[in-house]
Each structure stands twice: as structure tokens, then as C-alpha cells.
């Protein structure tokens, strides 16, 4: 075991323990929500400190899996559970933690099913962390599917619109995805035993078996990404959720599909896979254009954010399809900022939506009166559209340069979609800033000082990610 103090197991166990702790809290309407919330925040911060510690012991320049931890699960058949991280996966884990922490800040005052939300959030985070540190096919599959349980519950409780339809779609797609991935895992195990993820891409899977295994793997990951024609279930879920934490968590679903591609795709893509990749590129670009156009015309901010999230996820997917290791690493850095920006934008949008509902008024012109909110919202929108305010700027530059050099037409369409999705967010910003006498919201409805301080901290983190991506790592 390379990892000191089994740090990787610890970051999986910590949220799980937190969840057990929350479960034991007395279910009292007055205090349960607050206590559960505090435990959740504490667990998250504690886990982030451990993640920070892992960054310290990690070799940043080594892009292979490090700090390996191996456990024998079954003797007959011999199945090992292996955990490991590289800078890319650790960045994603940290990004997901910060995104969830931001989501938590957005639901501080909520009372509706707070305890349940905290339980499933912590369970999701534990499973998601396990997924990102999984280094063998079995642990990968287990965590990949285990994430679905808390997600299913969160969507079931907080997916407010057309709930039953959403749940059935969620089940349908993920069930099919689970079956095909399981069959692919079994075939790999049948031929090569319990292999680590790093070896999967180099397995000599040829002929019909290779065609099926890679097809099944691609399909199961694509189900998680809002790519046409599988985008509708995620769009329905995201556009229907008004709880910012639930939205942030569901917005992490495509990340799991992307991560799967990064872990499984071989760097030297075999010839038979090029057909899949080509179709993936074509469908990806069409989806981007399609979603960005709809996001641009749609007046619902939730859909605009969804469109933005989707377009960026697909850009990352197309970046992964280039098979370039440098692109993959840049996707990690870019996604770190992307997750933070999306979560922050979502909590502020949700705040505005709730103020609108409370006061039964239009939010148009709200930002003219709420200066603190205006500062934070403007900054985040500008960072989101790709201005040099976060690591997305430089990293997206590198990703797009590779995509442009790979296929100029695809690259241009992709950039057009990015610009359109960004323009959609700018539209919303100006709607909120346009002076409107009918808006009954005033400066008393502005975000609290504590919230503003938190937002300033988030802005600082984003800016630092632009100046020096791994600024928080001190070499030992």
C-alpha cells in the first residue's frame, strides 16, 4: 500500500461516516435540518483538508495513478479492489467537494426535507469520491452504479416538475447503462481477470468482443452525458430542480460519464473505435449547437445554465476523444473551475428565483438594487463565458486549439456553440441589471454579508486558479 494512512480510503469513508452520523440525529423539525446541515458542512471541510493533504504527497508531474491501495475482495474468484489517484482525478474530487459546499451554502435556510438531503448528499459524495479513486474495473463499476441510489432519491424528492416522468427516464437510461457496462466488465474479467483501469485501454480486445466491449462502455458513459438523443432526461431533471444543492449534484452526473471515458479510452485509439469516435464527434457537435440555440432563446435561467453546462461537458468530451494526454489534464484544470462556477451561479440564480417567488414580482432589474449580488453574479457570468477570471481561460484555450487543429469545422462550430451558450448567460445578466420600476425587490433583499464573504472567497479561488492552477499545493 503506497498511500500513507490509507488516505484514499479515508476520503471515501469520511462522507459515509458523516452520513451515518446524520442518520442518528433526532428527527426534530426545528433542529434536525440545522444539525444535519452543520454535520454535512463539517464533514465536507474535513474531507477537503484530507484531499489537500493528498495533493501535498502527490507527484504533480506524474500522470499515472499514485498512492495505490489494494484490498482482496474475493478469493475465489480472485477479485481485488484497487484505489489510486492522479492529479486529474484529485482535482475533480476537490472540484466536486467545493461545488457541493457551494450548493450547501445555497440551501442554508431551507427546511424542506433537509435531513434527507444531507444524508443523500453525503452518500453521493462518498460514492462519487470512490468512483474517482477507483483503479480497477470492479470498484469502478460498483461506485459508478452506487452513485445512482442517492441520485435517484434526490431527484425523487427535489425534482419538482413532472416527477414521475423524470424518475422513469432516469431509471430507464441508467438501467440500460448499468446492464451494458456490467456485461462489458464481465467480458473483460472473463478474458483477463480483475485488471486495473490503466491496463484496460491496452487490452488486446479485437474482433467482435472488442467491438462489443468498447461499444458497451461508450454507450454506458454516453447515457450519463446529455448528448443527443440521451440529453432529454438530464435536461428534464436539471430544468425541473429548483433546489441548488440538488441541481449541483445532478449537474455532476455527466462528469461521471466523462471521467469514465478518460479512464477507459486508450491513448492510441484502435481502428475499430474510430467509427465510434467519429459518430461521437458528429453527434456531440450537433447536440452542442442544438442545446446552445435552445438555451439562447429560452427565457428560463435554469435551462440557460443547463445549456451552458451541457455545451461545456460536450466540449470536454470532444477533447477527450482527441486522445491527447495534455488535453485530458487541461480538462481536469478547466473542470475544476467549471464546477465551482456552475454551482455558484446556480445558488445565486436560485436565490433570485426564491426572492421572486416570495415577493411575487419580476426579478428584472433586481441587480440594480442589490449591489453585493450584482458584483458576485457579474463576476461569475464573466468567468463562465470564458474571460480570464478562472483557470477555464487558459485551459479552454489549449483544449480548443487541439480541437481546432484536429478538425477545423468541428472546432468552429464548437466555439460558436460556446459563445452562444455564454451569450445566453449574458442575456440573463442584463435582464437582471436592466432598470425596471415594477421590480419590488430592493437592497434589503440583497445577499447577506456572510454569503457575500463566501462569494468573495469563491471569486478568490477562481482568480487564483487562473494565476496559478495548483496554488494551494505547497511542495514538501
Amino acid at each position: 500500500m503506497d498511500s500513507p494512512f490509507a488516505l484514499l480510503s479515508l476520503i471515501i469513508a469520511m462522507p459515509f461516516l458523516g452520513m451515518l452520523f446524520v442518520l442518528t440525529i433526532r428527527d426534530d423539525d426545528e433542529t434536525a435540518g440545522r444539525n444535519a446541515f452543520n454535520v454535512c458542512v463539517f464533514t465536507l471541510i474535513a474531507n477537503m483538508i484530507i484531499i489537500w493533504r493528498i495533493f501535498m504527497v502527490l507527484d504533480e508531474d506524474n500522470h499515472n495513478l499514485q498512492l495505490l491501495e489494494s484490498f482482496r475482495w474475493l478469493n475465489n474468484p480472485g477479485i481485488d479492489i484497487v484505489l489510486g489517484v492522479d492529479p486529474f482525478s484529485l482535482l475533480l474530487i476537490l472540484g466536486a467537494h467545493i461545488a457541493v459546499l457551494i450548493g450547501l451554502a445555497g440551501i442554508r435556510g431551507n427546511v424542506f426535507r433537509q435531513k434527507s438531503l444531507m444524508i443523500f448528499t453525503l452518500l453521493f459524495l462518498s460514492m462519487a469520491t470512490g468512483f474517482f479513486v477507483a483503479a480497477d474495473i470492479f470498484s469502478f463499476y460498483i461506485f459508478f452504479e452506487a452513485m445512482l441510489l442517492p441520485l435517484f432519491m434526490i431527484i425523487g424528492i427535489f425534482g419538482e416538475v413532472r416527477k414521475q416522468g423524470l424518475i422513469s427516464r432516469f431509471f430507464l437510461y441508467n438501467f440500460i447503462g448499468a446492464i451494458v457496462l456490467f456485461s462489458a466488465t464481465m467480458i473483460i474479467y472473463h478474458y483477463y481477470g480483475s485488471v486495473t483501469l490503466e491496463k484496460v485501454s491496452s487490452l488486446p480486445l479485437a474482433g467482435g468482443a472488442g467491438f462489443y466491449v468498447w461499444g458497451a462502455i461508450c454507450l454506458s458513459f454516453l447515457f450519463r452525458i446529455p448528448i443527443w438523443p440521451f440529453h432529454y432526461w438530464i435536461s428534464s431533471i436539471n430544468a425541473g430542480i429548483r433546489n441548488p444543492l440538488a441541481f449541483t449534484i445532478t449537474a455532476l452526473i455527466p462528469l461521471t460519464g466523462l471521467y469514465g471515458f478518460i479512464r477507459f479510452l486508450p491513448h492510441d485509439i484502435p481502428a475499430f473505435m474510430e467509427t465510434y469516435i467519429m459518430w461521437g464527434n458528429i453527434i456531440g457537435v450537433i447536440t452542442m449547437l442544438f442545446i446552445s440555440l435552445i438555451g439562447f432563446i429560452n427565457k428560463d435561467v435554469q435551462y440557460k445554465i443547463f445549456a451552458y453546462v451541457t455545451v461545456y461537458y460536450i466540449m470536454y468530451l470532444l477533447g477527450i476523444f482527441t486522445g491527447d494526454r495534455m488535453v485530458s489534464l487541461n480538462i481536469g484544470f478547466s473542470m475544476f473551475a467549471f464546477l465551482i462556477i456552475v454551482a455558484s451561479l446556480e445558488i445565486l440564480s436560485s436565490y433570485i428565483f426564491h426572492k421572486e417567488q416570495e415577493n411575487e414580482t419580476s426579478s428584472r432589474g433586481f441587480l440594480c438594487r442589490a449591489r453585493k449580488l450584482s458584483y458576485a453574479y457579474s463576476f461569475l457570468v464573466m468567468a463562465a463565458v470564458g474571460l480570464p477570471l478562472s483557470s477555464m481561460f487558459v485551459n479552454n484555450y489549449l483544449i480548443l486549439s487541439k480541437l481546432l487543429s484536429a478538425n477545423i469545422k468541428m472546432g468552429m462550430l464548437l466555439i460558436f456553440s460556446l459563445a452562444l451558450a455564454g451569450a445566453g448567460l449574458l442575456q440573463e445578466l442584463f435582464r437582471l441589471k436592466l432598470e425596471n420600476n415594477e421590480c419590488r425587490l430592493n437592497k434589503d433583499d440583497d445577499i447577506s454579508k456572510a454569503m457575500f464573504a463566501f462569494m468573495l472567497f469563491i471569486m478568490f479561488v477562481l482568480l487564483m486558479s487562473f494565476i496559478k492552477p495548483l496554488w494551494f499545493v505547497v511542495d514538501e
Partner: protein
Amino acid sequence: MIQQLFFALLIIALGSFLIVQGRRRRIWSVILLLAASFFMYNLWEALNSGHIGFFVYSWLPDEVLNAHFYLSSSLEIEQTLFALLGILIGLVYLNIIYQNEQHSLNINTLLLLNFSALIILVSARDFIQFMAGSCAFSILSFYMVNDMAAKSKFVFYNFWAEMAVFTALALVYGETGSIVFDDLEKSASALRHPELAAGLLAAAVCVKAGMFPFQNQMLDFQHIPFNRAIDLSLLSTPLAALFMWAKLSPLLSEAAYIETVMKAIISVSVFWAVAGCMLADNIKAKTLYFNMLFWSFALSVLERDISLLYSGIVYLLPFLTILNVVMLMITVSASNEIYVSQMGGFCRNMKFTFFLSILAVLGFVSSIYAWEGMCPKIYLGLSLLALACCFNGVFLGRENADERVSALLGNASALYWFPLLLVVAGSLYLNWAQSWEAYAFWGSFLITTAFFPQKICRRWADSELLQDGDIVYVLYRIFLLSPLRLLGRVLWIAVDFVVIERSIIGSISQTSSLLVSAFHRMQETAWLNYLLLVFVGLLLILINWGYYGHG
């Protein structure tokens, strides 16, 4: 020296953000002005001593993308920044004395920060720093606009321009693997798609400089306070466009069509600017059109020789600033009246202002002649025609001002005219025109001012379409925005709802329910169902037997 200037500006600007915007904002603004003047003095001393600074920070020390943050300079850059610092100080001073500006400290702080962004842009030696500087310049300018309609237009135009630059430079890096300006010539010739990269950059330059048909982002500044309109049209994106052109010229010259296209755009822009300058009734709009004329001229000069940016154009900018301030001074003297149709005959009460104005024009003409060979005479003629039209409408002819304006009409306070007089006198002393042509132009200007047929222009003063209409935006809405919206809606309804929701999801759902009901019926206690199941089982066995054989 540049690094000290950059960090000092940054620190002082950030420090002033912490100062609460209260009653003492003008005092703090004066402190900013003094600080900026001190920096200018230091830069002057450094220039005289030939001291060239060097600062480099390894920003992204990656083997794939090795980006640096340079603040090292050359004599050329230091001289350029010196001239621009002079303009900055003038604008900071203007913001302090202009009574209509309620947030002078804020705006001055943004100006200082904007200048820091300009330093980043000018001293960039690689794409990353260049794009960061350009974006920072746009973002800070955005905060200076305090009218939402103007702000939104400014952001959308610049956002698309930044995206165009981003794409072009990503294309260069993707195809050549270099982000360094020193390699640009080599990289440009190795590009597989030079036309695309050059086209994107040319579009970005035109948008940022406010050339036709993208002029409205600059012209909308007529709806913000006059001082801010001047700040934004002088020390903002058009200036960035010039540096963009100069730094990326190897790329632009790779595509043959760019020269023709740029010539056409510049010509139309010049025509548009002159027409606007003469027909617009709002004096702020006239000023902005005049600035558009200047930027068109600057681009036409750069098209011939980019080195003239550092050796000529930046030294003309102070004179453009002076002419802008003259326009502002007229509105201040006329109790903030901005419509030329409500002016006329002001010369009687504002003799000194009139004198100063024509002296400023002489300064402008002399300075252009000081850089002989740079200026096409047609540009000078058109500029003077536009100015003559404006001055005739304001100072000469029949008085149209209302009683309030007439009663309070008089020369602006010494706070305005005294520094202006000093600067104009100084510039005339330094650039005293040696050529008779310069005096011929100035003389023609005086004659045109005296006899300009103002009635022709006044006829258009009431035309709403001409004065407030935004034809380009209407065309943009009709030909770009509406089709995009329509397409988006059609896709949303046709594909999302009809194809996916109704057809795919609907058919899966129907199939599932059909299967469920079939299985449900098969499980019912009826002898026919048992018989059917036995029959299906036997059929499967037979198929298996037939397919795989007996063994």
C-alpha cells in the same frame, strides 16, 4: 520602469477601491491624479536616463505551454506609454472637475486599472498575456459604462470580438505549437487556414475599434455622461484594437483579401463618421463620430505601416483628447445643453471658448503635419469639415438656446480652460507647423466654419430615425437574431418534443407497457395461457436444437 508603474498603479487603484465613496471622493481623486503625475514624471526621468526595465514571471512553466508574464519594455513601448499616461492624467483631471460625474473616484480608479491592463496588453510577448490584457481591458471598460443599454451592447460586441481573437490564436497554437509573438511570422506562413485566422482577427479589430457596421457599441456612449463617453472612446477598446492590429499584423498579412476588405470597411467608416458628425444633433454623438473618424484614419495608417502606431498615432491621441474636451467644455458652458439645434450664436457670450477651440484645431493640424507623410490629406480635410460644421452650429448663426441656457451662457470655469490653454499652447510651441499647407488647411477650416450651410444639417435634427435609430441593430435583429431564435424554437419543439419526447420516449414507453400487459395476461390463470407458455418453451428448445445441432 514599466514594472514599477504597473504595480504602483495596481496598488493605488486597489487601495482606492477600499476607500468608501463619500463626500471626500474628489480629494481622493486628486490624490490619484497626483500619484499618476508622479509616475509620469518618473517615467520621463527613466526615459531620459535610457533606463529600460525588465520583469518576467514564469506564469505557466509547462513543457507544452510555456507562458510568461512580461513587463519588460523597449524604448518604443516606454515612449508610447508615456504619451498615453499623459492622456490618462488629462482624463482623470476631467473626471474630477466635471460636476455631473457623481462617482469620480470610482471612475478614476477604473481608469488607472484600465491603464494597468493596457500595460499588460502592450508589453505582451505571448498570446496568453495578450488575450488576458485585452479581456481585462474590455472588462474594466464595461464597468465604466453606466447605461444598461449601452453596457449590454458593449459587452455583446466585445464578447464576440474576444471570442474571435481567442479562436484565431487557438488556431495558430493548435497548428504551429507556438504562442510567442516573435515566432508569429514563421507560424503565420505555416498555417493551414491563414484566411480564417486573419478574417477572425480583422473582424475583432473592426468590432473593437467601432468600425462600420459595429460602430453602435461606441455611439451608444452618447447616453452616458460626457466625461465617461470621452474616457471610453479614447482609452478603451479602440486603442486595444490598434495594438491588436500592430502585434498580430503578420497573421493579418497572410490573407490577401484582408487588405481589400479592410480598405472597404475603413472607407465606409470614414463616410459614416463624417456624415454622422455633420448630421447628428447631439454634441456627444458628434464627438463620438469624430473619434470614429480618427480611429478609421488610425487603422488606415496602420494598414500601410504598423510602426506608425508607436511613432505617430499615439502622439496624435492627446490632440484628439483636447478636441473632445473642447466639445465637453461647450456643453458645460451651455448649462449641459447637448443639442446643437438648441445652440447657435454662442460666440457672443463665449468668445474665449471659441478662440480656444479654433486654437485647438490649429494644434491638431500642426501635430498632424509634425509627422509628415503619415496623414492622408483627405482625412485631414474631412476632419476639419466635420469640426467646422460643429463649430458653426454652436458658435455662429442665429441663437436658438432657451432662456435658461441663454441666461447662464458664458465661458467655462478656469478649471477647464486654463489647463487646456496650457496644453494647446505647449503643443503649438512643440509642433509649430513649418508647412504652408497646414495653414492653408486651417484657413480653409476657418472659412468653412464661418460660411457652413448649417440649414442642411438642421433639417435632419428632428429625424428620429437618423438621431436615435440604430439601423445596424435592426438589421442584426432581422437577419441574425430572429432566424437564430426561430431555429432554436423549431429545434426545441420539433426535435425535443416531437421526435424525442413523443416518438422515441413515447414508443419505448408504449413498448414497455405492451410487454408488461402481455406478460401480465400470460400469467393469468387460464388454460390457454399455460398452453401458450408450453408451446413457446418447446419452440425455443427446437430452435436451440436446430441451431446448435445435437451435440
